[in-house]
């Protein structure tokens, strides 16, 4: 199973990918991740690769090949478009519809509208779940929980229950942050239920 996460530095892709790997490990699989850490962490495009399989030998390297991702979790629509070539034909994408301003684009006055990317995703990614991450953040009370909302929305696609994600979350977060993140996780899961969902028979997962 290959899951690619992409977004903008600071949105929490690293923690999200670690949680997926933790879930996979807890389920008895061997997991590998590769993340963008360091110079790109603030405001830059970031990508995390998460791979898991029953046999370590089946995933010898940490990077997902182009066209090899079973699922794509997009924290930002433009970044999701940028990484769409990683998605397998028929693979599922969970994407937050809210754009993040690029300071460079803002400077040149050339900031594209997030809707352009969302529209493209609707056409190009047949198995698509769109999530209003900003709305969930408002309800939960923190803009920093977008990652959990997306994980909640993607849990079923990845083959994990929200409960197992919550277990993984408890292992990796300090107790005082668990409640807030649990809320976001559940909001995300609920939202994906009401959003356009994947027909399991059509999806590759």
């Amino acid at each position, binding site marked *: 199973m290959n899951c690619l996460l992409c977004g*903008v*530095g*600071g949105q929490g892709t690293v923690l999200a990918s670690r949680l997926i790997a933790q879930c996979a490990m807890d389920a008895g699989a061997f997991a590998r991740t590769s993340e963008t*850490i*360091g*110079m*790109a*962490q*603030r*405001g*830059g*495009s970031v990508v995390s690769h998460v791979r898991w399989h029953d046999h370590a030998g089946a995933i010898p390297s940490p990077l997902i090949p182009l*066209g090899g991702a079973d699922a794509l979790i997009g924290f930002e629509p*433009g*970044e999701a*478009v*940028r*990484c*769409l*070539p990683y*998605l397998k*034909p028929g693979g599922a994408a969970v994407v937050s519809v809210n754009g993040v*301003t*690029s*300071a*460079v*684009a*803002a*400077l040149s*006055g*050339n*900031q*594209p509208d997030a809707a*352009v*990317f969302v529209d*493209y995703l609707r*056409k*190009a*990614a*047949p198995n698509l779940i769109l999530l209003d991450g900003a709305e969930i*953040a*408002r309800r939960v*009370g*923190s*803009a920093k929980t977008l990652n959990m909302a997306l994980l909640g929305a993607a849990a079923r696609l990845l083959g994990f229950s929200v409960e197992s994600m919550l277990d993984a979350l408890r292992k990796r977060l300090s107790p005082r942050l668990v409640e807030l993140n649990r809320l976001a996780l559940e909001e995300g899961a609920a939202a994906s239920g009401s959003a356009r969902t994947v027909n399991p028979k059509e999806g590759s997962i």
Partner: protein
Amino acid sequence: MSGKMLLMGNEAIAYGAVDAGVSFVSGYPGTPSTEALEAVARLKPPGAHVEWSVNEKAALETAAGAAYAGARALVTMKQVGLNVASDPLMSLNYVGVKGGLVILSADDPGPISSQTEQDTRRFAQFARLPVLDPSSPEEAYAMARAAFALSERFRVPVLLRPTTRVCHACSVVERMKPEPLVKPSGFVKGKEWVIFPRLSFEAKKRLVAREPELADAQRPFNFIEETRGDLPARIGIACGGIGAAYAREAALSLGLRCRILKVGASNPFPEALAVEFINGLDCVLAVEELDPVIEDGLRPLMDGVALRGKRDGSMPIAGELSAAIIEDALRVMVPALSLDGGKDGEPPPLSSSGDISTCGGDKGVGSAPSLIAAAALRPTEAVSGEEMERQPRLPLAVPIGGDAAAQAEGASPNAAADEPAPTPPIRPPILCAGCPHRASFYAVKRAAKGRKAIFCGDIGCYTLGNAPPLDMVDTCLCMGAGVTIAQGLKSADPDAHCFAFIGDSTFFHSGMTGALNAVYNRADMIIIVLDNRTTGMTGRQPHPGTGESAVGEPAPKADIGAILLALGVTSVRRANPFDIEEAIETTHEAMDETGVRAVIFEAPCIAVAKPGRPMAVDASRCVGCQVCVKALGCPALSFMPSPYQQGRIAARIDASMCTGCSICSQICPTECIQPLDGPKGGDTA
């Protein structure tokens, strides 16, 4: 003075550099290299800066700064010093130089006066840099001179690695006509001086792609010669450095007529010449001190011809060589030389040509390896300085790095889509909203406005100050090098105000060394410490200034200002970068002084400080002048269509990102940015 002189190898290198017009010389003492810088200091070339640096890293970085501005620069050290300088070296190969930069790294086989028996030629391979390996003081003179032109042609540092018996030997050296001292052309700003992952990716490819051209340019340093004995043998000696001198002597002593491959520039290995050399031989002996560099270069080319050297025990793996050691090895290889017929058994039959055949070869003359060019054995005279001077000096080439990468990154259409994918905006890493570095850069930029200034950056979050609109990082090489490069640049570009920006953690890492180096060598520059009380870029690790240990326990807290004063800086000022006027004024005060001055901008990283109340734009008063967005490049700031005036735009602040640092509010001409009322969260637009 010119003409013939008796010079020690190190002095010959000094003369070679001076005659090449060197104007910046730095180094750290270390046997067997020390006399080179001492000789330059005695010669006192007019207009040249000569310094003993605090260490080899500082020496290489200051010299790099001078070479960025077009000066010819020499750095001197011993081989273990190169370990200390390896941090700048391994990045400088990518960034490159404008003026010729030659690094004398003297090796010490034995070792006689060193901790290690390391081989600088290996370092050259590691860094993909040219390395010249003189076999005598006279050759050291010629190579030192020629190295500057080679460095300028390929825009990379060139290593010069003599060994003890060259450094500390004397011989008659004929000085050639000196080149006129070229006044450094000055520093020209460009993104090629700022190391970034993309630049390194492109630079590495370029270094490899240019290897054939480099090999061609290095041909004068590599040649085949034939010894003049009465006893011909189909053996060859491949040698470099002082080993070449011993090899010639051993052949002479034995009366052996054989082929010699002299490798004076081993990186990249001169393969075509080596194939020519091997052709028709039965056996080759590799003769070199320290590591089997030439031997390893030959091995894949041997095509069945036997190769002897360090790897089969024919030559000692450690310690110095001597002619006697080589004679012994040659006796084993050429049984006719030996009274007992050689260790390898029976004397081989004579060949039809009358040459004495040799042991070890598993093939005859007829089955010689195919040649790249069927050239006959060509005895070559040793390379002369004059010959080297004829090497072409090409104009400076190839702009480095660029935006191509960013442009190439666009989304490719997904197979499932019928239409091409819209191109997502370029999203390079940037300073966070509320980052105190943005305020510091902005303040210094304002303070230096209208004056010639060079801003040297360093490694950390604040490297991102290179991006527009701040554009405040003119150089970046490696940890701590901002301070030293600023010093070197100032030396070669004295009209410029030279600033060095360094973070608190980087200051402790290696900035203190550069600060002391600048003070000791009477530099004129301003050190700007960006003290955000953490190691930001890597994720908020504590350091000696935080008062906390790695495991979260209390630790002694170092005071950067006190350290700077103890190092001897002229003045230390502290300012809060978020008070823009105060920060500008403080910078002005420092600029009006001379010597090494320091300004410490103190404000914690947003990742360790509690955010303040976010700011909001009163769109009814915003005139859409865009000053805030275009001056600061804050990710929380953008434009939107003005809700009050048709066809106008207004600034917009993303309250979820804004930390309330207020610098946009301070620079807004209409004072339309004020703290947001009510609880944090939500969007103000």
